[in-house]
C-alpha cells in the first residue's frame, strides 16, 4: 500500500504513500494509523511512542529502550494492508462560522473576481475533509476547496491572527486554534474551541479523517456562543 519506508534518525520510520495528495491516499495513511494505534494499545507491538499521519505519510516514533528500527520495519511489513479498515467511524462536524470577522474578503473578491457573497456561499457549500492535525495542538489541515477560491499565501504573513480564524490557501482550509502568526487568507471566525487543554481523554475536537461543513452565524450569535 505504501511506496517507501525510510528510517528517520535512529528512533523513527516514515511510511511514504507516494507524492499524490487526495482523500484516497490519505485515508490509507489514516487506516494504517488507526491499526498501529490499536496494536500498540493491545501491546501486540511494543515501544511505539507516537504515530503522526500527514497528507501522504505516516511517521512512527519508537522508544529505543524497548525496540529498534529492524523490529518496527518487520512489524510494518507483516501488516496485511488489504485487511485494514477505518477503526474509528469518521465524524461529520458542522462548525459555526461568522464571516463578519473576515480580514481578507475584500482582497479575495478583487483577486478572484467574485463578490463577497459568492465567496461565502461557495465556502459554505464545501464539505472539508481533515487530512491531518498538527503543527500546533488541534490545528486541522482540511481540503478540498472549490478551485474557484484558490489563492496563494499572503506575501507578508500577519504577526497575529486571532484564535478561531478560518483561513484558505490553495485547495486547503484551516482553523487557527490559538492566536498565532499566520499567512492564510482569513475569511471568518468560528467560536468553537478546537482544543481543550483540560480534557486529556479528548483534547482535540477533530480527528484525521473527519469531515467539516460550516454553518453561517451572525455576530450576535457568535458573541452569545
Amino acid at each position, binding site marked *: 500500500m505504501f511506496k517507501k519506508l525510510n528510517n528517520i*534518525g535512529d528512533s523513527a520510520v*516514515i511510511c511514504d504513500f507516494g507524492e499524490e495528495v487526495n482523500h484516497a491516499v490519505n485515508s490509507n495513511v489514516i487506516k494504517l494509523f488507526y491499526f498501529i494505534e490499536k496494536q500498540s494499545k493491545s501491546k501486540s507491538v511494543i515501544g511505539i511512542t*507516537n504515530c503522526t*499521519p500527514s497528507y501522504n505519510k505516516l*511517521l512512527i516514533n519508537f522508544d529505543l529502550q524497548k525496540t529498534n528500527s529492524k523490529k518496527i520495519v518487520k512489524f510494518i511489513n507483516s501488516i496485511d494492508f488489504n485487511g485494514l479498515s477505518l477503526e474509528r467511524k469518521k465524524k461529520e462536524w458542522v462548525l459555526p462560522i461568522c464571516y463578519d470577522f473576515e480580514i481578507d474578503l475584500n482582497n479575495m473578491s478583487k483577486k478572484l473576481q467574485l463578490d463577497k457573497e459568492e465567496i461565502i456561499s461557495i465556502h459554505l457549500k464545501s464539505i472539508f475533509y481533515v487530512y491531518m492535525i498538527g503543527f500546533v*495542538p488541534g490545528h486541522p489541515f482540511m481540503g478540498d476547496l472549490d478551485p474557484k477560491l484558490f489563492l496563494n499565501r499572503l506575501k507578508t504573513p500577519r504577526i497575529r491572527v486571532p484564535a478561531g480564524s478560518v483561513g484558505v490557501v490553495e485547495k486547503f482550509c484551516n482553523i487557527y486554534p490559538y492566536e498565532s502568526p499566520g499567512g492564510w487568507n482569513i475569511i471568518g471566525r468560528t467560536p468553537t474551541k478546537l482544543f481543550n487543554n483540560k480534557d*486529556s481523554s479528548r*483534547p482535540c475536537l477533530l480527528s484525521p479523517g473527519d469531515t467539516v461543513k460550516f454553518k453561517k452565524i451572525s455576530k450576535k450569535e457568535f458573541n452569545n456562543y
Partner: protein
Amino acid sequence: MSNFFFKVLRPGVNTTYQDNGRFGLQHFGISAAGCMDKESFFLANALVRNKIEEGVLEFAYQGPLLELIKGNAKIAITGNVTFNIINLKGETVNGECNRTYNLLVGEKIDILATKESVYGYLAVAGGFVVKNFFNSVSTLVKGKIGPNEGKKISIDDEIIFNKENIISKNLFVNIFPKTVNNIRVIKGPQYDYFSKLSQEEFFSVNYKITTLTDRMGMRLEGPAIENVISTNIRSEGIAKGAIQVPADGQPIILLNDHPTIGGYPKIAYIISADYDLLIRKKPGTTLSFKCIELSEAEKAYKEKQVKISQIINNIREIN
C-alpha cells in the same frame, strides 16, 4: 492533598515542570515535550531515590529562588548549575550539584545560573504534587498543556511536594560532564536535496548556535546550505532531533517542543545517544556534525544507557 510547599520568590526565566515526556498525542499536534537533558533528569531523581521518571522542575540560564514554607525537604540539583542555599541563620552556602541536601523549613534555594550548560533540574524526594495530563506532568507552554495550566512557574506560585523529609544521610555522585563539539547524525531522507558541495561542507564546517534557541528549536549559523531540488516538501510528521533547512540555508535543529508537522527538507537527524550533549551546548558556542550509520547509532545508544546506569550505581553516602 499535601500542604508541604516552597514559595517562588523569583521564577527564573524558563522554569517548568517536566518529566520523561507525553507520548501518544502527536497526531493531535502535541509534541512530547519532557526534560531536555534526560541524563541530568534521571540523575536528579536517582539521588533523592525517586522513580527515575518522576516529575521535576526544569530551569534554563537563570533558575528560581525558592523558600521552603512548610515541611522539610530532601532535594538534589543536577546539570552544571551555580546555586546557593540560604540557611536559617541567614548564611549563604555554596551549593553543589549531583548531591542531596536536607532543607529545613525557612531555608531558601537560590539557583543563580546554569554555568557551562543550558538546562538544570531540581528534584524533591517523594515528588511534586502536579496534575497529570495524558500520563505526564510535562509542560508544553506553546500549547498551554500540562501542570500549572501549561505555564512557566511565576512569582508567588506554590511548589507543592508530596512528603515531608525525615532528615537522613545525604548522597552524592561524582560525574565528569564532557563538552563535545562533534555531534553524530544520521542522514535524513531529503539529504539528496542539497548540493554535493553543501553535503561535504555540512560535515566539515563549524556551526554557531544562535540565541534564537529554545525548547522548540536550536537555530544554527554557518555557510548557507544550498538546496538544488526544492526548499519546500509536502508537510510531514516531525521527529525530535530533525535538522531542517529552510530556504535561507541556515539549519534549525528541532527539539522537544517541536512543531509536529513541517514542510522543510531535513538534511540529517541527531542520534539519540548525542541528544543530551547537544542540549548542553550554549548559544554562542560552535558544533560540527559527523555522519554515522544506523547500526552505530543504536550501539552508541546502548553504551549511553550503560553509562547512565553506572552513574546511578555510583551514588554513595556522604560521610
